[in-house]
């Protein structure tokens, strides 16, 4: 008889190891409530001289700015970027009993409601908000400080429309016209944050349940759904270097800035009446080991120096009206005067339901 491994044998082994791990988990579970008090600090930030900043994966600051903050405060800063805004908020919710860090940047208005409802943030409002910032305030909770904003808008390849002697569409309703059949690519709101923002634009414009009729009509007019922004913009859109087949795409108001040629002319344009405004916030994490440092970091994000960096590093617009914009932005950027809006509370209450209804209607 040979003693070769039999399937059953390792199933037993598997159960054995699972049992071991369950025991471990149970042990830690038992200690959770006792340690759940807000004064319990994570080890990584236990000393006063350190600060852990949690951000979304689009966060960027120049080395000079980071060094300046460390020099001025004497803090040693660790930056952690676990994913998109949704992932960040969900991780904060999951680790409420043992916070990941001290301060968070990058919660946007589509996820703000969830963060506030879950109680993962501590109240903090900077003493001197820069001019203009108050216009972007989230809600009455006093937990979220606006840092930057950007409009998600449809982008049009103006060269394509000129070549085809077709007028560039202006409104959401234009997209339902037969001459614009099979020209639009959007991204799936379930997997893409600009996709969700554009869905919210249609909800802001058409209401609930009116948006579903609108999407049914868009579908009948040949809208294409891509999984991610890079996929839609980089492959399907005709106005990017991908030279795809669709001259209309969901993107940002700032995107045309990056398609500009050397002569300063942009071959694409953002459609100002199709926009949803994303605002990104920072907040002090409840139970932070270094709440003072967290507050200092939020103040720092609102200084003119950092605010002026935001367009180049994060492709968003500063909330502070005293920040300076890059010359090209000031000239070309089309900030929508009337973006469509949906309140953070409404989004928190209905997001999953809207996405699932959208999926049923469109896919």
């Amino acid at each position, binding site marked *: 008889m040979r003693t070769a491994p039999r399937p059953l044998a390792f199933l037993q082994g598997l159960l054995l190891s699972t049992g071991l791990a369950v025991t471990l988990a149970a042990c830690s579970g038992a200690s959770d409530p006792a340690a759940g008090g807000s004064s319990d600090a994570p080890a990584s930030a236990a000393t006063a001289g350190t600060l852990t900043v949690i951000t979304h994966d689009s966060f960027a600051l120049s*080395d000079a700015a*980071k060094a300046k903050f460390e020099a001025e405060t004497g803090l040693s800063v660790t930056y952690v970027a676990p994913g998109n805004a949704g992932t960040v908020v969900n991780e904060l919710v999951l680790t409420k009993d043992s916070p990941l860090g001290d301060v968070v940047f990058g919660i946007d208005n589509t996820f703000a409601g969830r963060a506030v409802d879950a109680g993962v943030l501590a109240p903090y409002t900077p003493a001197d908000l820069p001019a203009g910032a108050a216009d972007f305030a989230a809600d009455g909770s006093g937990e979220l400080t606006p840092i930057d904003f950007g409009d998600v808008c449809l982008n049009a390849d103006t060269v394509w429309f000129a070549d085809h002697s077709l007028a560039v569409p202006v409104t959401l309703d234009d997209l339902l016209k037969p001459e614009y059949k099979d020209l639009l690519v959007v991204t799936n709101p379930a997997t893409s944050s600009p996709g969700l923002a554009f869905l919210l634009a249609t909800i802001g414009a058409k209401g609930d349940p009116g948006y579903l009729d609108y999407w049914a009509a868009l579908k009948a007019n040949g809208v294409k759904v891509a999984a991610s922004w890079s996929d839609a913009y980089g492959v399907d859109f005709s106005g990017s270097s991908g030279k795809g087949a669709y001259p209309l795409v969901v993107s940002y108001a700032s995107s045309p800035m990056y398609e500009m040629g050397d002569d300063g002319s942009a071959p694409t344009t953002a459609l100002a009446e199709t926009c949803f405004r994303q605002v990104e916030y920072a907040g002090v994490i409840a139970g932070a080991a270094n709440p003072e440092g967290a507050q200092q970091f939020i103040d720092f994000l609102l200084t003119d120096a950092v605010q002026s960096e935001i367009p180049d590093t994060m492709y968003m617009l500063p909330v502070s009206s005293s920040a300076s914009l890059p010359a090209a932005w000031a000239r070309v950027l089309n900030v929508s005067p009337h973006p469509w809006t949906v309140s953070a509370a409404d989004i928190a209450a209905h997001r999953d339901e809207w996405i699932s209804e959208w999926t049923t209607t469109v896919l």
Partner: protein
Amino acid sequence: MDDDGSVRRWRRPGDRAPAVQGVAALLPLAFLAVFFAYPVVTLVARGFRGDAGWTLAPVIDVLASPRTGRIVRQTLLLAVTGTAASLVLGVPGAYVLYRLRFRGQRALRALVAVPFVLPSVVVGVAFRSLLAVGGPLGRLGLNESFAAIVLALVFFNYSVVVRTVGALWAGLDRRTADAARSLGAGPVRVFRTITLRALAPAIASAAALVFLFCASAFGVVLVLGGTRWGTVETEIWYQTTQLLNLPAAAALSIVQLVLVTATLAVANATRARQERALRLTGRPSAQPVRRSDAPALIVTGLALALLVLPLATLVTRSFRTASGWGLDHYAALATAGAGTLTVTVWRAVANSLVTAVAAAGLALALGFLASFVLSGRRRGRLAGFFDAAFMLPLGISAVTVGFGFLISLNRPPLDLRTSWALIPLAQAMVALPLVVRTLLPTWRALDPRLREAAATLGARPARVFATVDLPFLRRGLGLAAGFAFATSLGEFGATSFLARPDKPTLPVVVYRLISRPGVDNFGLAMAAAVVLAVLTATVMAVAELLGPKEAVGW
């Protein structure tokens, strides 16, 4: 009837003390228990905890829902088709690239390893560019089809089959087959009864690996599947990171666990039936190309075309600039992409290399110990368990592990959640099964009579190991090191969860750039992806060189 002398079953001489085996087993197991089993079980357990205590209902609801059923069916269909296609193309490829001998062979071996480590977001864009309406292959009508996903899965996994099978095939003693031939067996019969049976353990190993890779495919399915195709992996990502639906995460993780366990059970049964001591020679047994090799050459040519086309798309787009064609994007590698990145691309390359050295070193050390224990067949029962344990990280979602980390490794001394060290640790876990799989067939196939002879002649265990085991293992070790290093270089899933914006790795930088508008960002992303590809090919070529080319005769 297998026990006809030349292929008798392997029995270990009593030169491995149980204590040595025990210690060797303990280290890798402890690593897995702390950094894998504990986080995963903690997260799954959280899914069973309702507002009013423990409950089964939400998890069972998810398991019973039609959506879960559809996802599981799609996952199985994709994984089975992807594995079958990879084997059909890969086994002839192993023959051509490892058994035959011709000029340029080494370059081709290095080339086939490249796709394995490319970030899936880049591969997705490359395939979509090829297949999209108006793309070079747009007429095939494969855009967002089942076939497109399967092609991409083969693109990723071809090298796994070629290398796992090839490493064994290269060292297979030709004399057994020659003997059969001279006794009148035709080439087909020789292949079926001698070669294929000898290769069976490696083929089973490769099939299990590829199946697990396909079943847990994430990026390519998301990008190429459009909105119609999903896998358990994409569903876990969506339910966990976007909806924080923990019962769904728990239910789907359990589905993955069952899937992995069943795969390993089948693969193990196959191996146990087929495995025996092969005759491995140290002598080069490669043969020159003959006319009868034409079918294998044609299949391999087709497979290489499938590999090269998307890579060519990447290279082409890396040269396309705002004003035509040029090297602008390569020059920009020394910049931080006009502010889009926090570091220069070259700096990210350095970060990647440092991380990969740490991860590959750890994976190699643990994998060496693990495969040592696994090859000791006298502990059959436990060996089966170890075998499964070391494969599990391949089949379980990085999201489950990543979110598990957050709620389990959250107390000193193990609060590594925001530490850089977690990145090489996570990558080592992903590379570990590959290391074990690469070393195991060679180690198991080592003729025990060599060790017995050495022991009889008075060599102590350490000397037996150094003079008998190690020379044979060197080739496997070289390959394993290459795989581990390359895996770490290209790893994105776990890394992106733990990403440190001030210390990004190359795949993170590529992802970052590709998520930004503008021809400069896109071109720089492509140039960075080409750098990643060249780096990988170089690593794999060096790993090949580490293996002995010339005789290690006995």
